[in-house]
């Protein structure tokens, strides 16, 4: 009985706090993406910038470690029974990647473009066996080369 109460209260806490944090994070991401719109980040090694105009270039990176809330983890566990799209994890990974890209851009202040962007995802922590207390979280890293133009 006590176990059930603990479980239910964790579910409610996870749901409320998790969805609040997610909404807030998405708002912040949208706002900062609009702010950095002038700095293109492309996966190509060139971004239409003539080689002669580049003054210097260096590696920039950004990362974010994000974990999922109790309620969504439970939902994902249920989803494992039937198969199909695990939407709760989709938003988690999406948030981590977009946050990593934004941090990479924040690392490249004054650059004209970021080229050859690579995004990597890895899980750190425990092995994510459902029910045990191992902390499974996800890290997204974005890195690329920031190009700075010569002063004219």
């Amino acid at each position, binding site marked *: 009985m006590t176990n059930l109460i603990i479980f239910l209260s964790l579910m409610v*806490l*996870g749901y409320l706090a*998790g969805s609040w944090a997610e909404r807030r994070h998405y708002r912040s991401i949208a706002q900062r993406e609009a702010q950095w719109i002038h700095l293109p980040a492309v996966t190509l090694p060139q971004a239409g910038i003539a080689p002669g105009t580049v003054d*210097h270039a260096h590696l920039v990176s950004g*990362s974010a470690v994000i*974990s999922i809330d109790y309620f969504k983890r439970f939902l994902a566990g249920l989803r494992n029974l039937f198969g199909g799209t695990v939407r709760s994890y989709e938003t988690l990974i999406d948030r981590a990647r977009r946050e990593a890209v934004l941090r990479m851009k924040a690392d490249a202040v004054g650059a004209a473009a970021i080229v050859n962007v690579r995004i990597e995802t890895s899980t750190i922590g425990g092995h994510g066996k459902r029910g045990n207390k191992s902390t499974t979280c996800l890290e997204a890293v974005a890195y690329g080369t920031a190009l700075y133009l010569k002063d004219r």
Partner: protein
Amino acid sequence: MIVTNIDHVPGQNIVEHFGLVSGSTIRAKHIGKDIMAGLKNLVGGELKGYTQLLQESRDQALERMIAQARQLGANAVINVRFSTSSVAQGAAELYVYGTAVKVQ
């Protein structure tokens, strides 16, 4: 030391190649941070302690790679790649590798 992840250094020519250089570090989680992360795992969201920890480790791996390149007499490292793997429960390896070159 110029570090890029494209196959050249913009505006400069590669005059000499020194081959692969790499740096790695394995970090375990801090017990205090782990407890905090455990709590955070209930409500979801960003684990700032881990982000910072991994960022510091990655910088250290980069520094090790740069030190190796410097020892070879290079002045730039191109085509840099990052990779992360979890080697044991609670420990992560951060590996950085690239090609050491001399540019002019």
